[in-house]
C-alpha cells in the first residue's frame, strides 16, 4: 500500500472541509476523485503532499507519516509529483530548465545527467522541440505537459493531478489526457481530481465520489457511472452528464 489516509479532518477556520476521510491506495492504482466544486476533493489531494496542513488524522505515504515530527517533507514531496490546474510553470526558466530544476537541486544530479533525463521526459510528453523556449510561448496544453514532465523528473512513486485539464481550452484537453493515459498504462500510481468523466471511465481502476467532505461512494468506474447506489452520486452524475 503506497498511501494510507486515516480519519482525516481538515478545517479552514470554522469550516470543516474534510470530515473523516479514510482511503487506501495500492501501488500502480489509478484513482479518480470526482465531486462538485467545494466538496473537498482538491483539498484532500493537497493534504497528501502537505500543501495543506491537516487538522487531525494521519496520512502515510510510502511508509512515512507525512505529518510526523522527524519526517523530511521535502523528500516525501519529491516522491509525490503534483500537477496543478494552473500549471504553475516557472516563467523565468526555459522548458528544459523547468524540468531539470528538481533533478539538479533536489536529487543533486550533475548537469549532464539532469539534461539527459529532462530531454527524455520532454520527448515522452512530445515536446522535445520546445526545450529551449520559455513557458509564455507555449499553449496551455503544452504547458501542462511540461508540468507533468517536471514532476516526473523526480521519479516520483505517486502522481497527484489537481484538475489538470480544467484551465484548458477544450481542443487542448485531449493531448494532456493522452499523456496521463500513457502514464497510467506504464503502471504509475495516480490520484486524479477531474471533471473528465470519459477519462475516469476509461483509465480509472477506482472512482471515488466526494460530497461535502465525505467519501459517499467508491468503486470501479462501471459501478459508479452505470449503477450508482448513493443518491448524491446519482444527483451529481445527472448534472455532469
Amino acid at each position, binding site marked *: 500500500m503506497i498511501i494510507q489516509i486515516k480519519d482525516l479532518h481538515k478545517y479552514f477556520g470554522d469550516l470543516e472541509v474534510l470530515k473523516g476521510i479514510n482511503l487506501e491506495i495500492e501501488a500502480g492504482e489509478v484513482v479518480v476523485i470526482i465531486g462538485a466544486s467545494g466538496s473537498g476533493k482538491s483539498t484532500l489531494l493537497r493534504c497528501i503532499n502537505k500543501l495543506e496542513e491537516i487538522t487531525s488524522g494521519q496520512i502515510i505515504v510510502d511508509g512515512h507519516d507525512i505529518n510526523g515530527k522527524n519526517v523530511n517533507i*521535502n523528500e516525501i*514531496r519529491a516522491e509525490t509529483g503534483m500537477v*496543478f490546474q494552473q500549471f504553475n510553470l516557472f516563467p*523565468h526558466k526555459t522548458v528544459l530548465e523547468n524540468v531539470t530544476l528538481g533533478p539538479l537541486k533536489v536529487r543533486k544530479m550533475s548537469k549532464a545527467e539532469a539534461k539527459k533525463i529532462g530531454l527524455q521526459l520532454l520527448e515522452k510528453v512530445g515536446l522535445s522541440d520546445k526545450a529551449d523556449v*520559455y513557458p509564455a510561448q507555449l499553449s496551455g496544453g503544452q504547458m501542462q505537459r511540461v508540468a507533468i514532465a517536471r*514532476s516526473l*523528473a523526480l521519479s516520483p512513486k505517486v502522481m497527484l493531478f489537481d484538475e489538470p485539464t480544467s484551465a484548458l481550452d477544450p481542443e487542448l484537453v485531449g493531448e494532456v489526457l493522452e499523456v496521463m493515459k500513457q502514464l497510467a498504462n506504464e503502471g504509475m500510481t495516480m490520484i486524479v481530481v477531474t471533471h473528465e468523466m470519459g477519462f475516469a471511465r476509461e483509465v480509472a481502476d477506482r472512482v471515488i465520489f466526494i460530497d461535502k467532505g465525505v467519501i459517499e461512494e467508491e468503486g470501479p468506474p462501471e459501478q459508479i457511472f452505470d449503477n450508482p447506489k448513493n443518491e448524491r452520486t446519482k444527483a451529481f452524475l445527472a448534472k455532469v452528464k
Partner: protein
Amino acid sequence: MSNFDFKTEVIWESIPILMSGLKLTIIITASGLLVGFFLGAIFGLLKLIRFRPVRFIANVYIETIRGTPIMVQVMFIYFGLPMALGTRIDPLTSAISAIAINSGAYIAEIVRGSVQSIDKGQTEAGRSIGLTRAQNMLYVVWPQAFRRMIPPLGNQFIISLKDTSLFVVIGVGELTRTGQEIIATNFRAFEVWTTVAIMYLCITFVISKALNLLEYKLGLK
C-alpha cells in the same frame, strides 16, 4: 530688466572642480546603495518570516528610518555617534552609512512587496518538487520578484542620489558642496547652480535608462 549677463566661461572654469564633487557623489551613492540593497534584501525577507520577534525587529528598523529625516540621520552619525563612541567618523563614511541605512529601509519594503506579489502557485510548484523553503526562494521566487523590483528600485536610486546633496551639512565634498564653494569665491550663483543641476540630471537620466534596459533584458525571457 536687470542687466544680468550670462557668463559661459564661468561654467567651463567650474566644471573640473564640480567633476571632483560629482565623482564623490557617485561614490557615496553607489557604495551606499550597494550596502543598502543588501540591508533591504535581508530586512525585506525578515519581514516575511512567520516568527513574530524577527518581524518585529525588521519593523523597528524600517519604521525608525522611514520616520526620521535623512539629514537628521546623517548628523546623528557624524556629530552624535562619535560623542557616544569616543571616535571620529569621517564625513565620507558617515555619508555612505547614511545612504545605506536610509535606502535599506525603503528597499526592504520594495523587496517585501515584490516577493509577496509572486503568485503562491509558484511556491507550491517549487515545494511540490521537493525544493526546500530556501531553495524555492533562491531559484523560483527571487528571480521573478527581482524583475518586479526594478522600477521601484530605480526610483529609490534616484532619490538616494539626490539625498546626497543634503550632506553639505557634514561638509563632505560632494557635488552640491563643491558648487557652494565655487560660488563663495566667484558669486556666480546662476551659472554654477545651472551646471550643478544639469550634472544631477545627467546621472539620474543614466540610472533611469540603465534600469529600463535591465528590465527589458530580463523581461525578454
